[in-house]
């Protein structure tokens, strides 16, 4: 028995995203609503690429001030000390604790940046209709989605520090404007990952096979 690789769209069928009921669309252009749960039916998520692009670009813009502006300003005996994320990494590295520096560097700089690059790569390949590595790209997408929820760690630590270290007037810590942008980067990339429809990765392959078949 030969395995037939057939997508729902190729078969002219739709799966409801809410209750997974397989339906025939009312019309190819306007699929209508799910007869069972009433959810709106769509071949693919609406404006998935456009949405994702918009959010990725917004996150990329926010990524710059998140790294340039200080995330934490420590006031010790009247002298104010403002630290950026990279400043913290450099401080940790120069003070000898390079493993910590590495962790901060990976968690706070490389992962957000990696997410942005990964999403941009997925979007570009989908738009160009690339065929190769669909499986790897899907895995990449899964990773982006998985890692997204852990990225708020920085913001979490920042908030905790600010709340705990309040020994006024000897020493107190205030959040810097950078942390807001950092949070925005994390939130925007998470939403971007959500709004991306991974089925698009496979559509070009399916279209191509369909053409040949």
């Amino acid at each position, binding site marked *: 028995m030969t395995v037939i690789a057939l997508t729902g769209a190729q078969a002219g069928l739709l799966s409801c995203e809410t209750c997974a009921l397989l339906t025939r669309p009312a019309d190819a*252009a306007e699929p209508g609503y799910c007869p069972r749960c009433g959810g709106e039916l769509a071949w693919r998520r609406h*404006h998935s690429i*456009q*949405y994702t692009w*918009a*959010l990725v*670009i*917004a*996150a990329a*813009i*926010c990524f*710059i*001030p998140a790294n340039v*502006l200080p995330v934490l300003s420590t006031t010790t*005996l*009247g*002298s104010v*000390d*403002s630290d950026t994320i990279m400043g913290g990494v450099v401080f940790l590295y120069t003070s000898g604790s390079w493993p910590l520096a590495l962790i901060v560097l990976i968690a706070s700089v490389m992962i957000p940046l990696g997410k942005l690059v990964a999403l941009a790569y997925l979007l570009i390949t989908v738009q160009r209709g690339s065929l190769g590595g669909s499986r790897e790209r899907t895995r990449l997408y899964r990773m982006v989605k998985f890692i997204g929820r852990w990225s708020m760690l920085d913001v979490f630590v920042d908030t905790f520090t600010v709340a705990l270290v309040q020994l006024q007037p000897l020493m107190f810590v205030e959040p810097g*404007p950078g942390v807001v*942008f950092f949070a*925005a980067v994390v939130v*925007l990339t998470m939403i971007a990952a959500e709004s991306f429809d991974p089925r698009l990765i496979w559509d070009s392959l399916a279209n191509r096979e369909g053409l040949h078949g």
Partner: protein
Amino acid sequence: MAENFDRDDLPQATVVPKRRTRISIVWIIPILAAVVAIGIAIQRIMSEGPTITIIFKAAEGLEAGKTFVKYKDVNIGQVTAVKLSSDHSKVEVTAKIDKSAADLMVEDAKFWVVQPRVTLSGVSGLGTLLSGNYIGFEVGKSDKQQRKFTGLEVAPIITGGQPGRQFVLKAENLGSLGIGSPIYYRRLQAGQVIAYDLAADGKRIELKIFVEAPYDKYVNPGTRFWNASGVDASIGAGGVEVRTQSLIALIAGGLAFDTPPFVVTAEPAPANTVFTLYTDQAIAMKQAESISAHYVLYLNESLRGLSVGAPVTLLGLPAGEVTDVGLDVDPATLRVRGRVEVVSYPERLVATLRAKQATVGEALIRSAQQRHALMQRLVEQRGLRAQLRSGNLLTGQLFVAFDFFPNTPKVKIDWSRDVPELPVVPSTASDLEAKITGIVAKLDKLPYEAIGADLTKALADLSQTLEDTSKAVNRIDADVTPGLKSTLDGLRGTISAADGVLKSTDATLVGKDAPAQQDLRDTLQEIARAARSLRVLTDYLERHPESLIRGKTEENP
């Protein structure tokens, strides 16, 4: 023509599915993010001030990102980098200055490192113990912007804009002065020493001082400055006088200035005028002598107690001083005598004249010829002579006095010599000696032997007289005493008789158990009893008046 073709042969219009080209509302998010980011960037760039470089000799306590630049205790910038200069001899400190203070970065602005400083005259910069050192800043007056500065080693004491003026003092040595040493004007603190340096020739100290504003106008070209450190004690006719400026000046040193009364008050001195720093007030306030006349005196008496600098007086007023004391020997005759060289300052004497006479006096001493003529006349006609006098009996200090001795022989002064010789008279100290010698001589002439003989005779007479007196007394003893004795014995018998009488009387009348007393006591008791019965009777009669008539009735039970 319209019916010539089949309708079906015509091409059919194609239906292109309407594509959704509408731009989604989601693009607002990146636009918003971009707007915010650009806004912040613009704000940053707009608020960005200049970055300046300050060169210090050492970066004491300066740290990148932690050290601030402060002006009037307000942060105007922050140090961003501290590194060695390219030749490794200095430290280059890079600081980012706030935009608000950007126009203060002019070429004569001053920077220095503020650190805790404890001196005798005060403690400063204590705040830096907690907050760390910072860079102090002082505005300049220039309009020319600059970005590279050289930091000062020490904080300027006088902050810009403080009214007042700077002057330069030249001193022999620094003494106990230092930066911040106070300057007093009539014991009010009027300024401070702001810097000192060795003069280029290495022989003097140049002090830069700052005299604050209302006092700076009292500094005029004739003002004298002196070192007011320590105590200046002097003993005069008015008692002991101790002069000091203040406790701080006593410990930490200080300066004082004043304008001598003889200086005509001129315009205030311009800034950076150079003055000489005198060692003490007396020297500072001394009038500068423009005219001086040198004379030599030859004396045939002891010069012990006469020292260089001893005063020369005219009628007791200061007229000059002794410049040299030594010997003079005539090689031919080997005559050795004392040589005293003096200098006189005619102006000092003219200054003591009253205003009207002063002009005349000044005319008299203006040229050398006039002075010579005046001196000649004084010596010849008025008998002006020099004399050594004792200034202090205890210490034996001598001074040279010019005085008038009209009875002295006339002398001419030889003006052709380098240093003209003035005639002298012997000191009054030798006069005294002569007088004492005279007295001693007279004492010598007294007839001590004759006096002795007379004295012996007188004593013999006295002895005779005493003997006579003794005899007279003996006679009295022999003739008068026996009669006196019998009389006294009679008197004693009389007295003892009187004594016996008195004693018996005493026993009868006043002794404790004398009979008279006993009787008296009994009598009195009788009287008391009688009185009592009388009282009983009267009581009874009062109650029973009828008893007078009826007699005493029986008492009813």
